């Protein structure tokens, strides 16, 4: 009996207490001050002090463990709410990775008081506390308001410290991008110590390496990861949340992944060997390589390797030039180049001319066979030069293919451009290399013949297709008379080529005259902007219009587009269905269109404001959003429905 009463007393003391002690933890509710003089929201926190070196877990515990849970009832006049999770730290147990808090943690929460009447609530917490081993523990606390005094510990400093660790909204300069399974988050707030912690357990291998430097953080997600990437990123002394929707569309729907691009580039490189100006000489060259090696006593493999390096070095030089041009272009806003009708005109004529060259019989690439004349002698240095020259000499034949690689490379981060070109180079050099090492492989090569010519001509027609597309872009920019001048340019290009086919004596002089004359016309040429045709439903975007809608609390969607932007066209075809426009109407969303087909400084400035250098760019805003929301670059109908209905 004595024991029982003792136990009872102990029990009462326990529940009365604002703090509770378990084997490995002490929990106490802390706040700013315990005198409560008016109703309202009071900031509080559960403070866990753990046995030194032990830890408990974040909301996503990582590979093992589990987050604490809190159970309570909100009595009359009280609301206990907004339990928050401060950003975690990595706790590693290789090969496992867990996320949590070592030694101590405060989970902030709020108590909303409708009045100052005496009231109390029991709060039970169940949690795991671990070092190498884990112990589940449980404690009950009593939060009690009596005579306007709340039974908490006054620790404003600690509460403030941990509240500052609760993740905040991503800084406005945050940019999340993905290529395949690789995600990159860019922001000035990211330091070399930054780390990404996903909320969802099925996002990524938690112990996989993350690469951080000042301004950018990269990590890989699971191959089968779908849905929205959500998590927090640690920066200097705080955490911020990131969210990137629809990673899956980047993966499989429209974009091609880096690995696919590399594979295609490699295959493209192999195909280059089939071009008429390359294939006939490849066997010859490979054999002469073997022979010259015998003469110079250096090994075949050394020579063959030197040749490969020569090819790779040349391709990389081309890549570096292109990337530099691209970066220079980006300084003035990528897309401007294509916006300039002059550039589009010249490009269309150039591509048309390449098409004619491919379809007709002119062979500009006979130089390959003369390589031996360029280089006399043997040895690895000469093999290297041979490799370099073979790329350059074969270029008239290979240019169309390079064009495709170039197109993809230009819209990729620099590193990927290099990888793609590297893969192209390896593909190009491989047959040559193998034949040099194993001369018997020659018999496996397809026999040179008529089919090569046919293949070449087919590529010529692809060029015509591209030229027509450019003409269509131009047709969106200029009036019919200006278009005529472009077609005259096509005509003259064809004429000059014909002159050189029939080996007309003065063809060079005539060509120069024609180019000069036409160029003079072009320089006087003023592009007349086409009068803007407006769709019935479309309201043209302007900054004034946008701010007016925002002021009146009216939702809007902005489509930054242009005739020359293929991705924009694809998106418009795929995602902007009648269903979507009906949904816009139903939800009172105003659809604004910002057409960047022609230069427009207002649009350019606005795009820059969203930290973009180009389009497509889609913006959605409604009253509930503080700031306009930047949508994915790749749209689907489903994704747009989600955006409209869930915000």
């Amino acid at each position, binding site marked *: 009996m004595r024991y029982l009463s003792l136990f009872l007393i102990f029990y009462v003391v326990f529940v009365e207490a604002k703090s509770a002690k378990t084997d490995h933890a002490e929990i106490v509710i802390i706040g700013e001050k315990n005198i409560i003089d008016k109703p309202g929201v009071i900031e509080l926190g559960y403070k866990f002090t753990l046995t030194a070196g032990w830890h408990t877990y974040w909301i996503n515990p990582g590979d*093992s463990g*589990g987050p604490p849970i809190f159970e309570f009832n909100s009595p009359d006049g009280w609301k206990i709410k907004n339990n928050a999770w401060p950003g975690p730290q990595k706790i590693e147990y290789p090969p496992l990775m867990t996320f949590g808090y070592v030694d101590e943690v405060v989970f902030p929460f709020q108590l909303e008081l409708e009045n100052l009447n005496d009231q109390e609530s029991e709060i039970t917490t*169940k*949690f795991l506390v671990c070092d190498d081993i884990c112990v*589940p523990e*449980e404690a009950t606390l009593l939060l009690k308001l009596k005579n306007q005094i709340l039974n908490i510990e006054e620790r404003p400093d600690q509460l403030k410290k941990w509240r500052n660790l609760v993740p905040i909204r991503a800084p406005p300069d945050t940019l999340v991008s993905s290529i395949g399974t690789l995600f990159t988050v860019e922001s000035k707030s990211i330091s070399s110590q930054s780390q990404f912690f996903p909320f969802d357990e099925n996002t990524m291998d938690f112990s996989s390496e993350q690469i951080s430097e000042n301004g950018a953080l990269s990590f*890989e997600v699971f191959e089968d990861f779908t849905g929205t990437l959500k998590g927090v990123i640690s920066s200097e002394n705080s955490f911020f949340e990131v969210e990137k929707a629809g990673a899956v569309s980047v993966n499989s729907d429209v974009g091609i992944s880096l690995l696919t691009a590399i594979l295609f580039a490699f295959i493209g490189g192999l195909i280059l060997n089939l071009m008429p100006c390359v294939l006939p000489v490849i066997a010859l060259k490979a054999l002469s390589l073997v022979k010259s090696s015998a003469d110079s006593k250096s090994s075949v493999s050394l020579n063959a390797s030197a040749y490969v390096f020569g090819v790779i070095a040349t391709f990389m030089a081309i890549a570096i030039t292109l990337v530099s041009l691209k970066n220079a272009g980006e300084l003035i806003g990528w897309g401007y180049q294509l916006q300039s009708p002059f550039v589009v005109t010249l490009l269309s004529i150039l591509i048309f001319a390449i098409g004619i060259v491919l379809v007709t019989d002119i062979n500009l690439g006979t130089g390959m066979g003369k390589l031996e004349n360029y280089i006399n002698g043997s040895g690895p240095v000469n093999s290297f030069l041979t490799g370099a020259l073979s790329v350059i000499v074969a270029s008239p034949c290979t240019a169309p293919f390079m064009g495709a690689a170039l197109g993809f490379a230009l819209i990729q981060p620099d590193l990927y451009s290099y990888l793609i070109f590297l893969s192209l180079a390896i593909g190009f050099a491989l047959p040559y290399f193998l034949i040099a090492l194993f001369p018997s492989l020659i018999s496996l090569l397809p026999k040179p013949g008529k089919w090569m010519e046919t293949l070449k001509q087919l590529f010529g027609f692809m060029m015509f297709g591209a030229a027509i597309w450019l003409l269509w872009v131009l047709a969106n920019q200029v009036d019919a008379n200006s278009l005529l001048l472009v077609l005259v340019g096509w005509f003259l290009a064809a004429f000059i080529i014909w002159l050189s086919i029939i080996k007309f004596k003065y063809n060079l002089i005539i060509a120069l005259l024609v180019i000069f004359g036409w160029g003079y016309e072009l320089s006087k040429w003023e592009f007349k902007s086409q009068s803007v045709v407006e769709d019935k439903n479309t309201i043209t975007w302007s900054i004034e219009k946008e701010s007016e809608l925002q002021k009146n609390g009216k939702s809007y969607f902005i489509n930054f587009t242009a005739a020359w932007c293929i991705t924009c066209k694809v998106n418009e075809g795929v995602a902007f269905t009648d269903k979507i426009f009906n949904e816009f109407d139903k939800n009172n969303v105003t659809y604004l269109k910002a057409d960047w087909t022609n230069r427009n400084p207002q649009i350019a400035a606005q795009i820059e404001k969203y930290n973009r250098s180009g389009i497509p760019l889609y913006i959605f805003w409604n009253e509930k959003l503080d700031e306009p929301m930047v949508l994915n670059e790749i749209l689907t109908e489903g994704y747009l429905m989600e955006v409209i209905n869930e915000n």
Partner: protein
Amino acid sequence: MRIKILSLLLLSFLASASVKNGEIAPSFSLLNQDNESVSLDEFKGKKIILEWTNHDCPFVKRHYDTENMQTIQKDMTDNEIVWLSIISSAKGKQGYVTKEQAKELTSERNAHPTHVLLDTNGDVGRMFSAKTTPHMFLLDEVGKVRYQGAIDNLGNTGALFSTDLSKAKNYVRNAVSQLVSGEGVRDKKTRPYGCSIKY
């Protein structure tokens, strides 16, 4: 930075060592509680369940204290399914047992594994990328992995310790019955929960 990203890509490309659903699980042989060598190959033609365990882990304890694990083990082994309990705790770490202790634990807890296998150096655990105790794998008759992950959906700390485990959605049971009925396993991969394996 760029070089690092590149190596990251290459690494992830090469080093996905974990077992994949639909692929044949790597074979292994380990010593059991009677010091006999047991190889995965000898169970061809039968379904196999692998259970990574650590008798001192509170998550495992909860499953055994409530007889939840033993009931599943019995139901499975009664249906000709092979149940292998694997202990990958290193010597001196939590959960490490000798053959004698393994036997004792089985009889004491009235467990029904086909074998208890001792993976003291952790090789097999690492081969399967086993992360937690419990961590479950289901292999079909030809040795293909059909399910891997948690035993049930009570991964959340409190839920595990305060819920009637028989009411949980048991992923292993579901996977087995879906495999038997031929409809295909619905939840093929879940994130395992529990204590880290003490390699």
